[in-house]
């Protein structure tokens, strides 16, 4: 009899723990998401983009022409950065690869308030170029425009713009098993949201239990991007 009682007691205890774990790992409420985003002025991020580059040729003459697409290479750009929207500074370290080989490294500091871009681009042979000059000479981008473009690319802005271009944001519920594991602390508490933008790009956004975005990624036909965010301060 006593043995059964012990078993029952253990089962009740286990059930309680599992139930509590399940309850502890609820997706964050709208309020929680709102509160956490408002505080996201300082963060570190990593951004990894892989894309396929094509050369698109037009074949034929006169009015009979055909557009042909020819694959050139797979590019990959890996960025680590620190964003401080209170001070208005963004620091980045960026590495560019073509078919897996490192082709360029950039270290950059953007002073958003002062409109200044400083940094160095280094080629594999050790040649260094001033970043502001590199942007101006290679792309016709002056410092003011570079700052504007960088701002449009900050992870929070990127995510906001993507949401703006979508109409299908939905939460993906974790499985009961995952919820229990998360509640027990055996699995990181992340809640997933998905949406598709107007141009059929699929996005996944993961927020922590306080609603802070910790990771987001998108996939399109020829590109894949993953961004992770670590809040600071």
């Amino acid at each position, binding site marked *: 009899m006593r043995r059964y009682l012990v078993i029952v007691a253990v089962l009740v205890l286990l059930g309680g723990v599992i139930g509590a774990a399940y309850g502890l790992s609820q997706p964050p409420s709208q309020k929680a998401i709102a509160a956490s985003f408002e505080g996201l002025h300082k963060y570190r991020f990593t951004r990894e983009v892989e894309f396929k580059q094509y050369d698109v040729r037009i074949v034929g003459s006169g009015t009979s022409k055909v557009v042909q697409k020819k694959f050139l290479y797979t590019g990959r750009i890996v960025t680590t950065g620190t964003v401080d929207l*209170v001070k208005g500074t963004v620091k980045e370290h960026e590495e*560019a690869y073509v078919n897996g080989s490192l082709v360029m490294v950039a270290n950059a500091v953007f002073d958003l308030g002062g409109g200044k871009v400083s940094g160095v681009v280094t080629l594999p042979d050790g040649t260094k170029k001033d970043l502001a000059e590199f942007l101006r000479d290679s792309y016709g981008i002056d410092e003011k425009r570079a700052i504007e473009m*960088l*701002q449009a690319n900050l992870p929070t802005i990127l995510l906001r713009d993507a949401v703006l271009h979508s109409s299908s944001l939905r939460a993906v519920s974790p499985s009961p098993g995952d919820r229990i594991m998360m509640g027990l602390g055996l699995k990181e508490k992340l809640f997933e949201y998905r949406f598709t*933008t107007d141009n059929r790009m699929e996005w996944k956004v993961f927020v922590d239990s306080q609603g802070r975005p910790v990771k987001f990624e998108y996939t399109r*036909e020829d590109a894949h991007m993953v961004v992770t965010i670590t809040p600071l301060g």
Partner: protein
Amino acid sequence: MRRWTKVVVVLLFVMLNAAMAGRTAAQWGLHYSVVLSDDGPEFYDTAAVGDWPFYYYFKLWGEVDSYSTSWYEGKGTSTIAVLAIGIYYLDDARVTVSNTAGFRLHRTYSQASFTGTFFYPFLDDLDGGPRSKLTIGWYYTRGTGGTY
């Protein structure tokens, strides 16, 4: 459905707040663009942007040929990787053919490279027709955009 509409609104609101915090305001509708233009009756212009290996070649080509078939073509790229700033995808390419007599044709493409033909109801420039002009612009945005 209504609940998710609310979530989107809240997300937008908080993202906007996050974006507007600090000393600088977010800029809307920014894009990287390449615009080429030439006067007729034959049009030709090229541009190269970037640095090896992220090097992109653009070309505008075409002609107006009075009353018969006129044509143009644009050659561009789908993706532009600008080191330390980000990767941009083609949003759209816009073509405008116009002349001094007020003729105006405007077309938009979601591909970076394309060709088009059109009827041009004038003599060409060299035969005494109004002066014609072809302009093609390629517009790139981050995170949205067309195909190749």
